[in-house]
Structure formats: C-alpha cells, structure tokens
C-alpha cells in the first residue's frame, strides 16, 4: 500500500527523468530536455499550490483563463507572426483539439473506469481534489494522452489548412482559414447527442460513439481535470518551445518568409515546407489549449468555440502584442483576458493614474531634454533619442487614459465591461495607425535591441555633454 502511494507520487518525477534520458540518448543533450520539463513541473506545482491556496476560486479561474489564452496567442504567433501567413480561423484548431480530447477522456473514462466522472489527483481540477487523493491518478494519464491526441489531430488539420497557403497569399489565405473555421463549426453542429450512460454507449454503433459530442447543444460533460498545474506546465513548455523555435534556423527560415517570400526562396528556404510546418505547429498548440479549455470546470464546449469571434479574440492578442513576438503575445494575452475584470472595478482602474500621470510628466520632461535625431553625415541612421521619451509618454497616455475612462464611467454609472469589445476594437484601430508593429514588434522582452531607444537617449545625452 505504501509502495503504491510512493509510486503514485514518484512516477511523474520518474517520467521527467526518463523522457529526457531517452530523448537525450537520441538527440544528444539530456539536460536541455530535462530542464524545461522540470521547470514546467515546478511552475505548475507552485501555481496549483500557492495560487489556489491564496486566492478565491474566481480569481484562480481567471488566472487559468490567462494561461490558456497565452498558449493560444503564442501558437498563433508561430503562424501569423513567424511565417507571416495570416490565419484567421485559429479557433477551428482550438475546437478540434478540445473536442477530440474531450471525446477521448469522456468515452475513454467510460471504457476504462466505468463512468465519466473525473478521478482527480492533487494536481488536477481547478478546485483541487479531496483530501488524501493521489498525486497523479490514472484518469490524469488519460487526460494527458487526450491532450496530446487532440493536439496531434489539430496539427494534421493544420497541414491540410496550410496546403492552400502554398498557392494563396495574404487576404485570400485569410479568407480560406476563416472558411475552415466556419466549416469546422458547421460540422461540429452536425454531431449526434452525447451518450450519457454505459448502456447508451453499448447500444450505439461503435464508430459513432467518439463522434457523439452533442452538436449545437454543446459538450459539457467532459471530466474536469484542467487545473492551474496542467495549464501552467503547458504554458512553460509552449513558451520554451516557441523561443527555441525562434532562435533556431527553422524559426529564422519562417521569419524570412514573412519578410520577403521571394528573397527567402532565392536564399534556398523551402517556403512551402516551412509554411506548412508553421501551420502544423501552431495548430498543435492551439489543439492543446483547446484540450485544456474543454476540461475546465464550468466550460461547455460548443460549436461557437470554432467560430470567427473566438479567432478574432486571439488575433487581437497577437496583433496588440506585436506580430512575431512571443513575449508580446503572452503579455497581450494576459491583458486582453484580464482587462474585462479591471473594467468591472473602476476604483482599481482609477488608481492607475498614480503611475500614468508621473509617466506623462517624466516622459514630457525627457522629451524636452532629448536632442534632435542624428542626421549628420557618417552618423548611423534610425537612432532617435526621442524614441524613448515617446514610448514613456505613449504608455503613460494609455494608463492615464484608462483611469480617466474609469473615472468618467464611475461618475455616470456606466459599466465599462459592457464596452470591453468596443474598447478592444478601438485599441486595434488606433494601434494599427500609431504603432502598427504592436507593443513589442518582432522583438522579445529580453532582446537588447528593444531597449535601443533607451540607449540612444542616454548616448545622445552623453555625446551632448561631451561636446559641451
């Protein structure tokens, strides 16, 4: 008995050691496979234990939503941001992954455990398991398998959707991907009702069982395994993968397609190959996100999840964050998911002025101090000491603007969260006109080049001081 408990506690740890050793034996570097998995496990455990114990269920749910949004936004970054193929049917992959995973755990649970109830371990379920539950249960093994299966099926579909990208460019491809999402939605609507009992499953045709996912009524009976642990472990792995991809030759090949397809091809980049890969990878992670979403408590998967409204939500995150920026997409995903909550509490939002107004003042002062951009002969182009003050002012305007908005809303008794989508729409338009590259552009938070405005500002100051 004790041995069993120890085993239950240890096997995931065993797994994270075993997997890297095996993969490392093939690939040559066990450590580089090991640490992301270990980090994912640690972050996941911390999130599950610390956040869950210190926060109410409602806030935990929101943090979970943020995590899923991050995975979705980062996955879309791979296809829209890296390869530059504008896909606006991304929710289709989310839905496919979600339905596949949901169907596997739901009907799989019937087959394996006799009922569809979740067998929660201490790391699963948003609200945690009962006292004395195993660290990891068999049900979670099924859940993990279902997530991967959902991701892989979505990736296969990604290849199918990616194929038109070989012949279509830009907006045409966008329309095809949109059409794909809609087709997925319609097809899901055609699926038969969920089979609610063992008898019903036994009576149904075997092949139709996994397809019985409820049609337009939705699919809400999926066992609710998703927890902060699973979501944030997946977030960590997704981020590390995306980062490695971007740093690799494969990622650069993708970026070159986005920059100039003809030149990329002339430099020997097999553009078709990388485009299809871009779609497949993006679809895989979207499928994983879909699986996590499907198993979240309070969620009933429905065909609408494949529709363009959902796709547009993801696009907003990616565009605001900066097309091609992983960290940008993640930050924007968090903001876009969390902002409605802030809008609901104008008092908190009003306090933003404490940060925003000083930013405006400081930014203005810095702008006054900053010299003119170098334009003399021999000087490097594109260095503008005013860029940094402008960025400070820009952020200040946004933050102060939000608090003023909250003030006005409170004064007139308007519920700002009703205007959430309108605000996002305006943000999208204003962003495209004033800063089309998004928050971070193609850069990452940790890129030195992102801070060049800062350097330019100070180096210009120093140069001036030296001259004087």
């Amino acid at each position, binding site marked *: 008995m004790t041995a069993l408990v120890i085993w239950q506690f240890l096997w995931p740890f065993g797994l994270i050691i075993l997997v890297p050793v095996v993969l490392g034996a093939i690939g040559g570097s066990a450590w580089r496979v090991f640490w992301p998995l270990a980090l994912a496990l640690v972050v996941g455990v911390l999130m599950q234990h610390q956040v869950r114990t210190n926060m109410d269920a409602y806030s935990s749910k929101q943090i979970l939503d943020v995590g899923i949004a991050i995975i979705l936004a980062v996955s879309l970054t791979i296809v829209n941001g890296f390869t530059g193929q504008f896909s606006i049917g991304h929710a289709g992959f989310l839905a496919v992954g979600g339905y596949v995973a949901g169907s596997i755990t739901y009907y799989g649970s019937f087959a394996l455990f006799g009922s569809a109830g979740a067998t929660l371990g201490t790391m699963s379920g948003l609200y945690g398991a009962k006292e004395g539950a195993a660290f990891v249960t068999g049900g979670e093994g099924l859940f993990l398998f279902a997530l991967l299966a959902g991701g892989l099926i979505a990736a296969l579909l990604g290849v199918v959707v990616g194929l038109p990208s070989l012949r279509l460019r830009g907006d045409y491809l966008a329309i095809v991907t949109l059409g794909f999402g809609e087709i997925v939605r319609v097809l899901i609507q055609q699926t038969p009702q969920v089979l609610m009992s063992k008898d019903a499953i036994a009576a149904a045709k075997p092949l139709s069982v996994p397809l019985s996912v409820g049609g337009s009524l939705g699919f809400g009976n999926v066992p609710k395994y998703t927890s902060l642990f699973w979501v944030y472990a997946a977030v960590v792995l997704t981020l590390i993968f995306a980062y490695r991809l971007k740093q690799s030759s494969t990622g650069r090949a993708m970026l070159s397609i986005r920059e100039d397809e003809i030149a990329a091809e002339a430099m020997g980049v097999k553009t078709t190959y990388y485009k299809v890969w871009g779609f497949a990878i993006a679809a895989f992670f979207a499928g994983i996100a879909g699986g996590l979403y499907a198993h979240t408590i309070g969620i009933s998967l429905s065909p609408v999840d494949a*529709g363009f409204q959902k796709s547009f939500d993801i696009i907003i995150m990616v565009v605001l964050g900066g097309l091609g920026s992983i960290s940008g997409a993640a930050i924007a995903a968090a903001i876009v998911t969390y902002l409605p909550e802030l809008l609901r509490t104008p008092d908190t939002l009003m306090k933003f002025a404490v940060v925003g107004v000083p930013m405006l003042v400081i930014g203005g002062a810095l702008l006054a101090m900053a010299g003119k951009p170098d334009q003399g002969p021999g000087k490097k182009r594109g260095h503008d000491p005013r860029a940094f003050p402008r960025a400070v002012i820009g952020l200040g305007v946004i933050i102060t603007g939000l608090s003023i908005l909250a003030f006005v809303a409170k004064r007139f008794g308007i519920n700002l969260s009703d205007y959430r989508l309108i605000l996002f729409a305006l943000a999208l338009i204003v962003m495209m006109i004033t800063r089309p590259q998004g928050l971070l552009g193609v850069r990452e938070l940790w890129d030195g080049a992102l801070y060049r405005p800062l350097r330019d500002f100070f180096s210009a100051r120093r140069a001036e001081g030296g001259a004087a």
Partner: protein
Amino acid sequence: MDTLLQTLKDALTIGSLYALIALGYTMVYGILKFINFAHSDIVVLGGWLSLVIATKLLAWLGVDLAAGGVASWWVGPVVLTLAMACCGLIGFTIERLAYKPLRGAPRLNVLITAIGVSLFLQNSGQLQFIFGTSPRKIPSLISDATLFSIGDVQVRLLDLVVVGTAVALMLALEYLVFHTKIGRAMRAVSYDVRTAGLMGIPVDRVISFTFILGSSLAAAGGFLWALNFSVIKQPADTSWVLLGLKAFVAAVVGGIGNVRGAMLGGLAIGLLEGFGSTYVNPALRDVYVFAALILVLLVKPGGILGKAVVEKV
C-alpha cells in the same frame, strides 16, 4: 418541379442580394487591395437604420400597421434612400478616419484595421441604446400578398421588389462604372493607384466616392435583406458575418475587383447554396459556399472573370 422552381426563386433572390453586397467588397478590393471586413457591418447598419427610419416615419405619418394600416407606396423608396445616404456617410467617415491614415501601409495592417472597424461597429450596434441585442420585426412596407403563382410557387410583390431593386441598383452601378467620368476614374485608380494619381486623378476623392458607393449599396442590401426575411437579427449575430463572408466569397468567385464578376459570383453562390441545401443537406449550406471558394481559389485563383496577377520580382 415545384421544388425546383421554389428553390430557383429563393436562390435567385438571395443570390441577387449577395451580388449587391459583393459589389462593395469588390470595388474596395479593386482599388485598395484589402478585404473590407467592416462591409458586412455596414449591411447590418443599413438594415437596422431602415428599421428605425421606417418605424419613425410610419409613426410620424400616423400609420399603424398592426391596426391594419397600409404604408403608402413611397415609404419604401424613401426609407431606402435615407438608409443609403446615412450608410454612405458612415462609409465615408470610416474610410477617412480608419483607412486613409494607412494608405501605403502593409496590406496586413489595413486588414487588421478593417477587422477592428468591424468589431467596433458590431459591438456598438449591440449596445442597448443603439440597436440592442434582440432581433426585431421590420414593418412590412411592401405588401406580401401573392401576385401570381407558377404551379405551387407563389410570387409576391415583395419578391419582385427585392429582386427588382437589386437588379436596378446593379444596372445603375454598371452604368456608373463603365459609362461615366467618375467611373473611368475609378477604373483607372483600380488599375494603378500611383499612375492614376500622376495622371491628375484625385485619388483620395475617388476612393472616398468608392466607399460611399459601396456602403450605400450595402445599406440597400441590408434593407432588402430585412424586408425579404421580415425579421432583422441583432447586430453581432453570426448570420450577419456569414452573410458578409458569403458575399465576399461571391466577389472572389466572380473575380475580385471585377464589378460584373461580383454580380455573376453572387448569383452563382446563391444558386449553389440554394440547390445544395434543397437537394443535398440543408445543414451544410455554409460548407458548400466555403468549399466552392477553396476550389475556385485553387483551380482559378483569379476567379471566373478575373485574371491571375503575377508578382513582379
């Protein structure tokens, strides 16, 4: 036989509305080379504005349709004209505020802006003090009594008016584009914006005019759509986006940038959808349309009447 006729009648009605809306997509694409995602929301706006105008107008005239009153024959045209004018103005404003600052920007940025404008219109329309979130019935401005029947298929005055107006507007546009000075300017700008500008064509004015034209046609489309179904769905309803998408598909199938192609494409999509849903499976009507789109793009990317564009290296 009756099923066939009925399907044909419905398909042609819907197809002519698709064509009307497709014209707006095709004209904007022809000139600015981007999908005006907000176009379908102008259609919605047109439908809802005509509802509001019609209600106000009837109240002002003291006609109570519920109590058996009958709207005068001129109410319909007046509502249509006012809705078209309002939407034309709104289209103009959108172009000036959102799209004009992006002239010369990468196409993707403009596309994203268009998505933003679309979301903005959709969600503003949903606000309680604007149009609200529930479907409404539009006053029946035109009698839906049967005029005559062919077999079991009844043809109402309403049907004739809907199709007739759509066709009349398309003919007017055809005349405008191919036989007037402004039409020639539009075609020139669509052929090459820069050269047209160098030749002394006021490009900005032509683009504004195109938006006004496209938006007012969209308004007409929305008005006729509402009349045809007598109920108008809430602004963010999925069916509107689908309507817009199908109209866009029609424009692509016909050959984007090609005015006659859009009309042809609209009818083709209407027929495909109508016959597909009557004779194969009604639930899959959206699938036929998008499958047709993908097929056309793969086989003849320029569309039926368009020609493929080769990128210059």
